[in-house]
């Protein structure tokens, strides 16, 4: 959207991307303990690809360009007592690192907060402009 309040929608798009990122991380964490048989694909990590939105050289914010998926092979581990284990006793678990996901979650949360802070600063600036000469 164009208009006098451009920085508001830019910060809004940043918050949107951080939100989608948090959704993806939540999905990864929710599925991190999934176990599948060795002849089935493992849960694939959700990865967000963000891209700057630009129009006529002016900054327009950021967009989620696409969603990518991690490896479907996961990790094959030896669990002979598992119900999904094959004849040799192996199952497939997702190749998702919980500590990495938690770190990403902190970064995404801070990204959201930073955008919210930029939003608030822009709004305060606009409101301050209205008080000129009052």
């Amino acid at each position, binding site marked *: 959207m164009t*208009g*006098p*309040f451009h920085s*508001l*929608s830019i*910060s*809004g*798009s940043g*918050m*949107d991307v951080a*939100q989608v990122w948090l959704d993806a991380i939540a999905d990864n964490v929710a599925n991190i303990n999934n176990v599948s048989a060795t002849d089935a694909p493992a849960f694939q990590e959700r990865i967000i690809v963000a891209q700057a939105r630009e129009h006529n050289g002016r900054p327009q914010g950021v967009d989620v360009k696409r969603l990518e998926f991690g490896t479907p092979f996961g990790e094959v581990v030896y669990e002979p007592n598992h119900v999904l284990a094959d004849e040799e006793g192996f199952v497939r678990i997702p190749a998702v690192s919980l500590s990495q996901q938690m770190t990403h979650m902190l970064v995404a949360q801070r990204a959201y907060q930073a*955008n919210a802070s930029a*939003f608030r600063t822009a*709004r305060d600036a*606009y*409101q301050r402009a*209205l008080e000129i*000469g009052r």
Partner: protein
Amino acid sequence: MTSPIQSSGIAPVRVTGINPANGAGAARATQSEQSEQSGFGKAIGDALATVSDMDRAVTDAAEQAAVGDLASVSDYMVAATEAQLATEITVAVRDRALSAFNDIMRMQI
């Protein structure tokens, strides 16, 4: 309700004899029509129309939030803040113009 002026027996002044069809009056009428098309009133009117559009967007978003269709919280907040700021700006401009008008009315002649 009767006004104190009427109860005191003094009739309110009625201005007669101004005929817009003749000379100076006609010119003044044309001028005021022109100022209606491009003047301050139109500017405020346009601004209010924009504010009204923004308000409609916010109402739509509020409705979506109420029924659970809201895709993005930030879109709602952006729309709400934009509408708030636009309204504040329009009101500030109107207040400033009104105070200018009052200053002129208070001018010593």
